[in-house]
């Protein structure tokens, strides 16, 4: 298991500081467009942090996590469709809706392991995708337009900077929460069950229940990111939860370094940078992007966090494939 290295922590905190100063910098340099990109980065980073919690620390490769982003966005969009703009109502629906979806799908998919788990989470993600495509009331394929952002007392997120710092504060909150959970008894059980479930069972910990709790927490956190994304883009569509989105989310986590606190943040930044740069070069940039993905998997174990802490990477190498009998 990769542990967060001092250098990576320093880089992560530095990156957060940069994000906090970004509005000032883009304002003075007249790069307003980039603030939008950075804001999107922050929101996606929350989603990646939530996925990293179960994927990196818990070994649960959820290939349907984009569904939670979509559900969170629709939790804002559907009430707004009926002219209900109360932010607390939206948050309540996010927590209950994503929590319930995570609880049901998690309860079923966590009964399985490895490849089964990957494919089942993927299938459940697609289920949500197709369900929203076929609900005409909420726009189906075409999606929904959200005419106004969620309303909170005092905090007026309609204003650009306030929304930006709300997102940033949420990201820091998410990172702190994951940091605390991972180092708690709960997190120890999750990590322990990843490396040796049988031993954890022998110690008296029912791994299934702990995993399910982690899965639900992660789903709700990702739903929250989705709610922010819905507010941010003010247009939502089922396309947000397609399985390729889930794949991208996993790639962000792995690119940054799964199982490290700031890894997902690095991953999202790198991912969006690559996307921006490549799509500026050619319309066929996906082919280069795919090649980068393949090369990262084949040659760069541990992601960016692994590169930052290169000495560890030799030790942190992925163990040979788990016993197929498992």
């Amino acid at each position: 298991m990769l542990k967060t290295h001092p250098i990576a922590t320093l880089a992560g905190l530095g990156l957060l500081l940069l994000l906090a100063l970004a509005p000032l910098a883009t304002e003075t340099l007249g790069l307003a467009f980039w603030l939008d990109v950075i804001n999107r980065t922050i929101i996606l980073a929350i989603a990646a942090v939530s996925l990293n919690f179960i994927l990196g620390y818990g070994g649960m490769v959820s290939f349907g996590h984009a569904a939670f982003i979509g559900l969170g966005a629709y939790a804002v969009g559907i009430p707004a469709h009926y002219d209900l703009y109360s932010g607390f109502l939206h948050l309540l629906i996010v927590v209950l809706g994503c929590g319930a979806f995570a609880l049901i799908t998690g309860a079923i998919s966590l009964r399985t392991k490895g490849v089964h788990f990957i494919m089942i989470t993927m299938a459940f993600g697609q289920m949500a995708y197709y369900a929203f495509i076929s609900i005409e009331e909420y726009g189906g394929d075409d999606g929904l337009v959200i005419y106004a952002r969620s309303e909170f007392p005092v905090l007026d997120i309609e204003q650009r900077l306030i929304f930006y710092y709300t997102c940033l504060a949420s990201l820091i909150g998410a990172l702190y929460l994951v940091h605390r959970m991972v180092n708690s008894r709960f997190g120890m059980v999750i990590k322990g069950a990843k490396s040796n479930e049988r031993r954890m069972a022998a110690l008296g910990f029912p791994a299934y229940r702990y995993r399910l709790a982690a899965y639900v927490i992660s789903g709700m956190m990702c739903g929250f990111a989705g709610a922010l994304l819905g507010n941010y883009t003010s247009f939502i569509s089922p396309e947000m939860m397609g399985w390729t989105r889930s794949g991208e989310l996993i790639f962000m986590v792995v690119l940054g370094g799964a199982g490290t606190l700031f890894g997902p943040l690095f991953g999202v930044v790198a991912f969006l940078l690559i996307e921006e740069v490549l799509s500026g070069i050619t319309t066929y940039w996906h082919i280069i992007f795919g090649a980068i993905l393949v090369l990262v998997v084949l040659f760069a174990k541990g992601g960016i966090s692994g590169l930052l802490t290169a000495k560890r990477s030799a030790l942190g190498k992925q163990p040979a494939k788990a016993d197929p009998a498992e």
Partner: protein
Amino acid sequence: MDMSLFLIQLLNGLQYGVLLFLVAAGLTLVFGIMDFINLAHGSFYMIGAYLCGTITAVTDSFLLGVLLGVPLTALVGYVTERSVIQTLYQRDHLDHVLATFGLILIFDTGVHIIWGAEGMAIPLPAWLETSVPLVGDSQFPTYRIAIIAVGLAVAAGLYFVVNHTKTGMLIRAGASNRRMVEALGVDIRLLFALVFSVGVAIAGASGMMIAPITEARIGMGNDIIIIAFVVIIIGGIGSIKGAFVGALIVGMIDTLGRSYLDQMMKLFMSVDAAETAAPAISAMLVYILMAIVLALRPQGLFPPKTR
């Protein structure tokens, strides 16, 4: 209920199920032996359709398109296996899905570059453009019957090869204990490459068969691959028999659900409510089925005996 319409829907379900089986067969074979999960399997389905379309356009013969297209698709699969996939066998499943996700991006964009963004229609020869009379005065397209026939023939062929030939014996042995087969002097890498290419060829062939109906387009493989996953999850990953049964169940339930669910729901709820909910539920039907199967049997209906 209109019986002839029901019969047509049954046949449509069977045709969809057979097609799903052809895609799922390669997936489950490769997984059974190599413990390798290939998201890009659907890309070969797409590539098969495009290759066949081009050859059909050049030679003016759909049959030639299929006959030349299948080995060409297998070749693409073989090259992919040798260049990227064989280095992944010893990695964990996360690496499998990520690398093959990258391959999907490469293949999809590659097709976009070569054939353009628009779909490609594939004309059928006249003798396949006919219909077969069913009961009463209803008709069913000959071509769909042909798909069912070819699919069942491939299923039978696979069953024969896997269960009654020496290669099949090696495949089964490799699935139950890879190391032992290697220790007995079998070139397991060659066997892997062979099985992978055959799976790719079958997937490519199924893409070619569906393309005249739906036309070849980018992303067609990504749509079917998820359902193929559902099929092999229901059937038990690694089992050909499971893939066959799972594919037929999924094909039937999906087709019949889309046609009849709204009528069934109208029996016990208001017409309005049924018309709103039925499309969403019928879209979710196969996934709900998967969830039920998994809740009862986490390893699927026919899990392979030894792994």
